[in-house]
């Protein structure tokens, strides 16, 4: 039965990763695009099955690393050669070999901070509330169950038809997910 409340989408529950990936592939082939899988561990095939192949994260990390490295080097150059020149045993003010270790560290730091905060930002985390948490038994998505969701926003989404289609995927059960 359709619930009174507005609905986020429909969700099917599976027992194992193979069934979930198979179901996700069929759903994608059927033309649904606003779909997502939920699993207790990363499944490479699953993100491919729902048509998610590419993330910008590595590019961001590269930029973060370059920015970190440049910032580290230029900081040392500016402070040692321009702002606060100090003659240490007659060495040149711009003694670049001595600046490499810190440049290396700031490169790693810039890249690592970008990796973690970039990953969280692209994932939209932290996000304390999300409609999928309304699905019954969704707590098992962090234990041993596998879920496939089709959002109501999908252009092909039609409550009755989509629900019928999801039944053909041979799930354990299909739920309504309240928005």
């Amino acid at each position, binding site marked *: 039965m359709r619930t009174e409340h507005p609905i986020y989408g429909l969700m099917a529950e599976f027992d194992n*990763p*193979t*069934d979930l990936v*198979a179901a*996700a*592939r069929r759903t994608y082939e059927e033309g649904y695009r606003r779909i*997502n*899988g*939920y*699993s*207790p*561990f*990363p*499944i*490479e*095939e*699953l*993100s491919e099955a*729902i048509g*998610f192949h590419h*993330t910008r*994260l*590595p590019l961001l*990390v590269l930029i973060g690393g370059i920015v970190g490295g440049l910032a*580290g080097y230029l900081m040392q150059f500016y*402070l*040692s050669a321009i702002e*606060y020149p*100090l003659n*240490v045993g007659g*060495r040149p003010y711009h003694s670049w070999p*001595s*600046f490499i*270790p*810190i440049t*290396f*560290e700031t490169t*790693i*730091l810039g*890249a*690592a*901070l970008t*990796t*973690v905060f970039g*990953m969280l930002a*692209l*994932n939209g*985390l*932290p*996000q*304390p509330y*999300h409609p*999928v*948490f309304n699905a019954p038994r*969704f*707590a098992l*998505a*962090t*234990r*041993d169950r596998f879920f496939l969701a089709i959002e109501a926003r999908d252009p092909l989404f039609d409550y009755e038809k989509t629900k019928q289609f999801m039944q053909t995927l041979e799930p354990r059960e299909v739920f309504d997910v309240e928005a």
Partner: protein
Amino acid sequence: MKEVDEPHDDVGMHLTSPVIEPGHTFASVTDKISALALKRRTPIGWFIGFAISFALAQVLLLTIAYLVTTGIGIWGNNIPVGWAFDIINFVWWIGIGHAGTLISAILLLLRQEWRTSINRFAEAMTLFAVACAGLFPLLHTGRPWLAYWLFPYPNTMGMWPQFRSPLMWDVFAVSTYATVSALFWYVGLVPDLATLRDRAKSRVFQIVYGMAALGWRGSARHWHRYEVAYLLLAGLSTPLVLSVHTIVSFDFAVSQVPGWHATIFPPYFVAGAIYAGFAMVLTLTIPLRKFYGLEDFITMRHIRNMSKVMLATGLIVFYGYIMEAFFGWYSANEYEWYMIKNRMTGPYALYYWLLIICNGVIPQLLWSKRVRHNLALVFIISIVVSIGMWLERFIIIVTSLHRDFLVSSWGMYSPTIWDWSMFLGTIGLFFSLLFLFIRFLPIISIFEMRTILPEAEVEEEAAT
């Protein structure tokens, strides 16, 4: 599930012992590991262990209070031995930390599946060891409340740090290492915190774990980016961990002190760090798997592999000792050669030979398969190695400094009770943090354990 840790087990069988005992499912792995953090009753042994550690941590607080109000004169440091326990212990703790990063990053890149059940624990060890390490240079500054002077920030004195100094490199290396290790550890924890959130019965724990889990819901898109991020972090941590101990060794090698000014220092320090770190991981996991019944997850294969890594890095370290002695002679420099002779026959010779026995001789027992499968012996060897690595830093630092270039500047060093109380205190802090970690967080990465189960494979024929 069969017992595998019987010493009289058939040795040949262990060659095929798995990284996880058969019969486990997603649910059983999840329930078993999360129960360690979620169960209501805390074992009595935990209270005893925590009480002892926490009492030692109070010794640390007492020492710091006395140190800060009096000054570092309460230590045995003097001139010529201006660097003593504080740097010995700093290097010792930092080195221990390195095994955690090695296990979590380098072994991940090398696709060593067995790392999965020990990486979380080893990373926690890294964090706590780095925290203990950081205390020593911080307090050695004498005025720790001004330690922020080490960082480049615009100030009214118009002064800036000296970037040509290895000590500045060290500040950046260690603070970057601490930051990246903490991030790596936390990122690894997020999916498991979500598991704890969903499995916790009490409202308080649901909220606390829920906040820490950042709303993780296992979405396939999230997992995809997560995996990319995790791999990138591993790739970044690998050169980082090698650079950290290299830079720590630069603190010594860039100086002109005989016994420190050696090109072999960076690789020899890095190998020593991994050696000490694996020894500490073994010291901690052998009792842990026993008391928490984790023999299914931390199998004999883990113990065996860690023993082998320890043996291999121990040989590199021992090679370093031989090369140090060789170059002391080959340099034909009287100060270098005197330093080696003084190490072997001088006032600290006892500690030098103890070091050779602890780090060079006793670990050779690990060549034997029987020894590697004897938990008690492996445990004892791991402690011997920890002592040996501590002695190594003592020898490098004290024997190199106490004979200055001029005979008139020679001196001796002996630690005071406050040196010892500070060292023991950090051990207390380390174990207190570790006990809290064992009680409240999943000590084994649950989601990674799920991935190594056979049922985690997607069967391609069925899926298409």
